[in-house]
């Protein structure tokens, strides 16, 4: 496989993997998050928040992938980018690394969203006892 073929295949493959990672993270977190949102703000509005979680995770993953540029390593034109296979592999690794970093940041952000939801619901045992 020539370097140019490798660049084309790896670019789209890593992009797809990044997108799938974002979707996978959303699917892992969706069930508990939907339950929390439904308990706090009701079923109708919880759907909006759950969809926002999906959009956010997917966007974070794609953003991580797109944030790595092939021109960052001193390569000005296309021929220079294609010339070195090691550099191409390294860029693919960096794309996946950034995807992971962005997903981690997004998950932490949504942890704070859940915290705010819990505070809004006042879902401590004591508060529940007060209400009942």
């Amino acid at each position: 496989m020539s370097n140019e073929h490798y660049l084309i295949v790896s670019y789209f493959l890593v992009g797809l993997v990044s997108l799938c990672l974002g979707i996978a993270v959303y699917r892992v977190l969706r069930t508990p998050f939907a339950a929390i949102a439904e308990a706090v703000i009701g079923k109708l509005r919880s759907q909006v928040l759950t969809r926002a979680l999906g959009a956010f995770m997917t966007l974070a993953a794609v953003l991580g992938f797109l944030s790595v540029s092939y021109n960052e390593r001193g390569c000005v034109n296309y021929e220079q980018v294609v010339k070195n296979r090691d550099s191409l592999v390294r860029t693919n690794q960096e794309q996946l690394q950034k995807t992971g970093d962005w997903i981690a940041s997004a998950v932490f952000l949504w942890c704070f969203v859940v915290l705010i939801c819990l505070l809004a619901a006042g879902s401590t045992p004591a508060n529940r006892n007060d209400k009942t």
Partner: protein
Amino acid sequence: MSPHSIAFLLALVASILIVLLIDRLLRPGLRGLLQEIVILPAATEFYLRAFAIVLVSVAIGAVLGSSFNLKDGARFMEYVWAVATGLKDVFQNLFVVLLVYVGLITVLIAALTRRQ
């Protein structure tokens, strides 16, 4: 298989084992703590899943970000040093993640127990 690939795979396996170990060590205590503070079981599940996702993504990202510059015919200790360099990044990232997570849980405890 090139020396680069061998060192990368070794570091990857080691980092996955480290993540599993940390998760196994912290999960029972964390689950108990969250169950005590948060009445919604879904919230406990969410925070535990988020914890696992962040650990895995950060550890594997650190291995992917490390460079293993090994030439053909590299000696045993050169592999060890290369893997150790990769693991250094993994530990650094895990340290930051645990720090942030501890901060998050502290805020959670402080905010929710204050309302009791």
